[in-house]
């Protein structure tokens, strides 16, 4: 009986030391998107993107508020939220995926594919994203870029504004993680 108590004591007290945290978080990830046309260039940035990676399962989750994208002009912000993204109805964009063949022992930078589901405007699409993962003393920096088609996410753009907005939007991201203390 005593042995069991000792064992339990040891387990509960030292379990924390054995399990190194495999989860990393950023609350201030950066996501930018660009729309280049001959009429005008539109650029917006969100600096409050939440992301958690779990390296024991190679999983990544991302969530962002659509109304937290900052544009050069506030009218673009209004159009984006009210007409295109409808952020009252769909306040968040999310991504859930898996880092393929992540090597936890590699030092420096490694380029990997992330496969997962991107949800924007209530529509979910399977996508693949190339990312560079940099090990920074037990923390990680993920960067990369990819493209999405406006029509894939059922975003309606009035014909009069069609020349102003690119059919393909390029997106860049920069997530600087830190260990997620449990």
């Amino acid at each position: 009986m005593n042995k069991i108590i000792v064992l339990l004591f040891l387990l509960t007290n030292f379990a924390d030391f054995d399990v190194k945290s495999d989860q990393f978080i950023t609350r201030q990830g950066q996501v930018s998107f660009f729309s280049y046309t001959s009429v005008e260039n539109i650029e917006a940035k969100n600096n409050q993107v939440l992301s958690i990676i779990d390296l024991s399962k190679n999983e990544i989750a991302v969530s962002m508020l659509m109304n937290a994208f900052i544009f050069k002009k506030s009218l673009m912000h209004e159009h984006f939220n009210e007409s295109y993204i409808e952020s009252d109805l769909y306040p968040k964009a999310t991504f859930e995926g898996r880092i393929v063949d992540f090597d936890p022992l590699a030092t420096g930078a490694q380029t990997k594919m992330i496969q997962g589901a991107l949800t924007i405007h209530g529509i979910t699409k399977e996508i693949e994203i190339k990312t560079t993962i940099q090990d920074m003393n037990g923390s990680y920096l993920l960067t990369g870029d990819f493209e999405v088609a406006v029509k894939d996410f059922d975003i309606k753009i009035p014909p009069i504004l069609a020349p102003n907005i690119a059919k393909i939007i390029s997106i860049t991201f920069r997530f600087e993680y830190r260990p997620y203390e449990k």
Partner: protein
Amino acid sequence: MNTKNKIVLLLSILLLVAGLYMYYGIYNRSYKNIETISAEVKISSTELVSSFMMNEKFANSIYRGKIIEVDGVLKEVTFLNNRNTVLLYSDNKYSSVLCDMQANQIEEVKKLKKGQKVKIKGVCKGFLKDAILLHCMLTNTQIDE
């Protein structure tokens, strides 16, 4: 062309010019300066976070898109990605109020210390793991108790 027609023509041109001018004014407008607008809601950082955690949809209906003033205890200041960000404590260990400060606040933000009481005004955007406020400014730095 008689005089009446000339006047009508002149007036309509004037109206058109004025309309275009106003359109471009609105089109090029940047974000509202919240400095001159008073907060619609005043709340503590702990209350704000717990109201989002209890019922996000309901909290969104009250706070989202509004200018609010939050008072709380400073948890952390970060300068990641060239932003000045102030985080305020809540009752929950993993959540806070995340305030993205306006560029003109940098000198004041640099002086802040962890554990200090602050009041911050900003536009509430919603909740992820933290309540998010943008275009923020400190409102009580002068009145130190």
